[in-house]
């Protein structure tokens, strides 16, 4: 589904990623771990198409297409989703209206009809239930006054609504208490199937107790320095990152 080949990314002229190689197939969960500043968020933002992250070398191939020239919204239309580490607060637009706008924008881009109101409502209810979100929450302004847990649940709610092929969850576990973490992990697990893939970006092993990865990669100074199975995460948890450098 996704092939990242020798990816180099700079931010404001400063190189952050120095040759990433990664292969993600449908049905897989990949965890990318690493200390602060290793380039984890840069990798997710580069895949999602943030223009501030300049690809200086290498390719990102998604579903057999090079997506480097595509705008963020075009990547979204093709099924790439990123859950933000710091979801943006937008006063004046409700969660419901935001997701309706996003769903219909995606449908229009794929030359499909917009979703009828009753179908939309049903889907919103269903997915809100999955993430234990109440209806009052849905009529609040997007992320305004939300707790850390509510913001992250809202991200996964959007993922559930948009049904992407490739989801990149950037530090989805940060700022979550254990109950919220379980709800979020349960949501991700229920959405997972053989046709989609998930990349989990995380600093800690904690999340991986609940969402079990097929592969774990360790990022250090903009390069993947070690890859392995899920047991690698436990090893990192016990020994820290120092032994890998």
């Amino acid at each position: 589904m996704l092939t990242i080949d020798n990816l180099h990314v700079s931010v404001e002229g400063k190189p952050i990623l120095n040759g990433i190689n990664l292969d993600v197939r449908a049905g897989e969960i990949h965890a990318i771990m690493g200390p602060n500043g290793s380039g984890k968020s840069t990798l997710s933002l580069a895949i999602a198409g943030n223009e501030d992250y300049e690809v200086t070398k290498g390719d990102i191939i998604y579903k057999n297409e090079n997506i480097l020239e595509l705008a963020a919204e075009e990547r979204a239309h093709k099924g790439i989703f990123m859950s933000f580490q710091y979801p943006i607060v937008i006063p004046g637009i409700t969660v419901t209206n935001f997701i309706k706008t996003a769903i219909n924008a995606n449908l229009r881009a794929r030359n499909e009809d917009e979703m009828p109101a009753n179908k939309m409502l049903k889907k919103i209810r269903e997915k809100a239930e999955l993430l234990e979100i109440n209806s009052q929450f849905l009529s609040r302004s997007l992320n305004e006054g939300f707790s850390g847990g509510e913001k992250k649940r809202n991200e996964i709610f959007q993922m559930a609504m948009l049904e992407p092929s490739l989801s990149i969850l950037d530090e989805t576990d940060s700022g979550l208490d254990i109950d919220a973490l379980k709800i979020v992990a349960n949501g991700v697990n229920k959405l997972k199937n053989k046709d989609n893939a998930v990349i989990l970006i995380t600093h800690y092993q904690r999340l991986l107790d609940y969402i079990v990865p097929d592969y774990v990669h360790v990022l250090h100074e903009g390069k993947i320095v070690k890859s392995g199975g899920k047991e690698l995460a436990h090893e990192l948890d016990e020994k820290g990152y120092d032994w890998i450098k």
Partner: protein
Amino acid sequence: MPLADKLVSSFLAFELDINFQSPVHNIRTNAIKNFEKLGFPSKKLEDWKYTSLNKVLKEDYTLFSKKKNVLDFKNVKDFFLDNTESYKIVFVDGFYDPFLSQTSHDGIDICIMSAALTKSKYSSIIKKYFNTSVDKNESFSQLNTAFSKEGAYVHIPKNIILEKPIEIIHFATGNESALMLQPRNLIVIEESSQAEIIETHQSLTENPIFTNSVTEIFVAKNAHLDYYKLQNDRLSSSLIDNTYISQKRDSNAKIHTFSFGGKLTRNNLNYFQKGSYINSTMKGITIIDDNQLVDHHTLVDHTRPNCESHQDYKGIFSGNSTGVFNGKIIVNKIAQKTNAFQQNNNILLNDKSTINSKPQLEIFADDVKCSHGCTIGQLDQDALFYLRARGIPKKEAEALLTYAFANNVLESVNIPGLKSRIKKIIANKLNVKLGFDL
């Protein structure tokens, strides 16, 4: 003849034509003298530094429309609230229109100034309130006072909660090649009463219309007023609005100003707090384009302890448009425990539009909380990326963010019919194709 001279020289005939014996004769005569002395303000004055009146004043306005034009309701119904029961005070080219209006004398007075200024049953209220709060040094207010004759008159006695809003609409039809209008409104809300009022100036013509409006509002002890100014006029119209609000203790007065239309709009909004535990709220949304100019000058005079004032003005500017915000807060020495907040946030959608924003705080008390903030910027790039990463195309995302920025002010609008109408105007102004119902 310059407009100022024309106005002064027509005053005598105007006074003779209405009632020379009227108790307000002296008030009018003093006002024209004040105006003669002051003249129209120029950019040399600090208060008019960013707003030039030259283009507006150079037209050869007819000062009094000669004939009464009749409007058919079906042609103007879009300017009234949709699906909302309301009282209506409607004027056409400065004349009261009884057919479009729906007034009341049923324990309340929702009627017109020409009656209030001439009939004896209103004289005690007129004597007590009329022209008592107007600034003697403000040229347009003096001019309006000199020619005060017609406008809305609202008097709500004690302990009445109006269940319907009042719509005050001033139409201009364009039967004169250029017309000047000077409506004068008086609103008195007595103790523990509540009212909602919507004021609109609407031209139906491309002929220049220049409106010089003055509204005096008195909100008594424990009374509550929600006042909405909907300024969505044609680009051939200009408006100078002076509004003076005097509040007694425990009262609450909110004014929302929605400025979308008009060539030049100047709002002088003055609050005078005359008791403790008063709440004064001013909110505004300005969205303008082309060569439009909207100038908000606010004043809050805190004179007693334990009062609050809240100001939240937002502006979105494109084209060659110009915005001005000048917010003056005075906290007198005895006005301890004052909470005064002022916020003015602006988005410039291109590099040709301008906003001049200036807070002016004069604080003489030491135990107060006062804050002011002003932002001028483009759209938040992180927010834009967030929307785009969800599949919302750039142009749509920009429009949606701009809409959200303005929409946030509408939360405090309590009339559903008005709220949806303003949302539609905003969406339309911003060219937003929203994927949801308004």
